[in-house]
């Protein structure tokens, strides 16, 4: 296993730059997830690491050795493709053995490695089958097996679960997490699904338009997003982002009614400064009888049994989502008052940058 260092990686296609000066260090044995919306450059960055795309500027080092100019075949990495990219005319066994044959290993060694990986991935009974005779999940496991047998320095995964149905995706996600724990390898994983990112990653790299927006552990990103993009992207349902104005030293005013919300901390913002207030749906509670709060009209209720979601509107504000524990009797058209937990409030300046207590 190995560590990876990207220094000032830039990638341009003609006049269009798709990756902007990316710096990143991935530690040995770490599971790093690149996450971001479609077209943010995450797959391109992975392909650059793999050696399938050349960099325009910058360098890539694996275990301290510069591999920037080396072809994919000489980097010692393994990649699991979104489409699986299994050789359709070869059996599962041959698919997994192919790279080992290229390495010039002896037949008994190849056989041992393939069977060990097959046992690990519950593929032993399917070794003689062709990929077309396998289900989507089994194909995915073959693709992973093909990577495992090579004992690569780093595993690269390019949206490997996106072709699976929801149930299988959850199951395979757990298997991948188990596999990382078992193999202890360095893994870089690309996805646009932030749930996958949150559940699998040691660290998440959030990308937008070819730039890194934030790097951190899943909970760091969840609890302390650096900017509006990360705040909105990480978490499901997404964080409520409400336009507000600074009102006094420790409060902001929301909506047309100018409902004041206590921040629970002092800010140095001049009154009237435009800001965005962020609060996650689970950090909003319904105010009790006679308690003051932001008035919201319920437009939709989702009842999931163990939890309920209220979607509603307040004058001059975008739709607000509220997560309630258990079941609720509220319905469409009800008027409720919302209380925001001050400890979980996030404040962003007009440029979308987080205003942390030490900076605000």
């Amino acid at each position, binding site marked *: 296993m190995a560590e990876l260092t990207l220094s000032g990686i830039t990638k341009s296609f003609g006049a269009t730059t798709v990756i902007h000066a990316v710096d990143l260090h991935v530690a040995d044995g770490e599971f790093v997830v690149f996450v971001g919306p479609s077209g943010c450059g995450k797959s391109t960055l992975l392909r650059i690491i793999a*050696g*399938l795309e050349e960099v325009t500027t910058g360098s890539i080092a694996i275990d301290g050795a510069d591999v920037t100019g080396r072809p*994919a075949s000489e980097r010692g990495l393994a990649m699991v*493709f979104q*489409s699986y990219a299994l*050789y359709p005319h070869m059996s599962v066994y041959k698919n997994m053995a*192919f*790279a080992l044959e*290229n390495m010039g290993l002896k037949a008994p060694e190849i056989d041992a490695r393939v069977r060990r990986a097959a046992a690990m991935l519950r593929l032993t009974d399917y070794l003689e089958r062709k990929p077309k005779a396998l289900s989507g999940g089994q194909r995915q496991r073959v693709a992973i097996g*093909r990577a495992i047998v090579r004992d690569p320095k780093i595993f690269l995964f390019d949206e490997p679960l996106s072709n699976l149905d929801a149930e299988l995706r959850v199951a395979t996600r757990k298997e991948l997490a188990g596999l990382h724990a078992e193999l202890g390898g360095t893994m870089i994983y690309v996805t646009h699904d932030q749930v996958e990112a949150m559940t699998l990653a040691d660290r998440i790299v959030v990308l937008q338009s070819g730039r890194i927006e934030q790097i951190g552990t899943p909970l760091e990103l969840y609890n302390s997003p650096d900017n509006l993009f990360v705040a909105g992207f990480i978490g499901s349902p997404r964080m409520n982002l409400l336009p507000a104005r600074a009102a006094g030293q420790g409060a902001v005013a929301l909506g047309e009614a100018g409902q004041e919300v206590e921040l629970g901390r002092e800010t140095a913002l001049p009154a009237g400064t435009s800001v965005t207030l962020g609060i996650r749906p689970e950090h909003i509670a319904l105010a009790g009888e006679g308690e003051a709060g932001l008035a919201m009209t319920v437009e939709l209720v989702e009842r999931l049994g163990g939890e309920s979601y209220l979607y509603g509107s307040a004058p001059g504000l975008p739709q607000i989502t509220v997560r309630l524990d258990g079941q609720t009797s509220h319905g469409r058209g009800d008027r409720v008052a919302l209380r925001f937990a001050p400890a979980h409030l996030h404040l962003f300046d007009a440029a979308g940058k987080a205003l942390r207590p030490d900076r605000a």
Partner: protein
Amino acid sequence: MTPPLSLRRSAARWLGLFVAALMRLVDWPMRWLQRLLGERRMAYVFLLPNLVFFSLFVFLPLIINVVFSVTGGTALFPSERPYVGGGQYAYLFDCDSFLDPGSCREDHFWRGVANTLRFTTFQVVAMVLFSLVTAVVLNMRIRGRGFFRAVYFFPVLLSPVVVALIWKWILQRDGLLNAGLTALGGQKILFFIDPGWAMFWAVFVSIWAHMGFYTLILLAGLQAIPADLYEAAEMDATPRWRAFWRITLPLLWPNLIVVIVLALIRGVQTFDEVFVLTGGGPGTATLMVVQYIYETAFSNQVQNFGLAAAASVVLGIVLFGLTLAQLAASRRRSA
């Protein structure tokens, strides 16, 4: 000059009316037929026109050909031709050794068979190889790829006779090639007098004329192979030749089978190009089976329809057998 808009509109209106009237006219008998036959059998009614033409111009001549092959004489109408049973076939196959055309009573036929075999073998092998290499190169990201694709396909659009004439002008005694050779201080080569050269150029011209078509089939096959398979192979540290051998060729196999079968059938049927280019000469060095059949039936002083028909039946059976064998191989491979 484009007709005025009003005229075009008027023509379109009349055409529309005509089609509508035609549809009305066809409507009631079709409805009546559907009531009579039921919906399922109506499919055969729609197939009927094509079946009639196919029967008239393919099945019927096929049957007449078989009938002719068991009759003798020079009369044209089957009713006037005496029945000779397998006499024509016995005459064709009357050989001391099939490997030596000279030992056969109808030595021209067997020389034609030997030449066709030689021609087809060289042509198919070379055609497949050249088409494959060309398709692989044209599938790469090279400058002017579209231009080269068009250039390679262009000869396919030419008539075989035109192709043969072009090359005849190049290769004949005072042709372009010999002019070039003499200009460079060399000697003229009599390409159509030397049996080896004549066969070589017959094969070459045939490949030149048809390679574009087979290249197109293989190019389509290459483009259907997902690019990520090659990326996976690259990640698997697969050398290029091995990726070609272990990934490209197996996945291209269905297209290769089509190319081999078509080239084989076309090779065995070869007539017009070689006939115009060499006339079957020198002597019988490039005489093909189909040319033998043509000359036996229509060109010789005594028009021996029966013998030509028997040779046609033999050729038909060989082609049928070849096609079945190739299709079986293709099915086994793709299973």
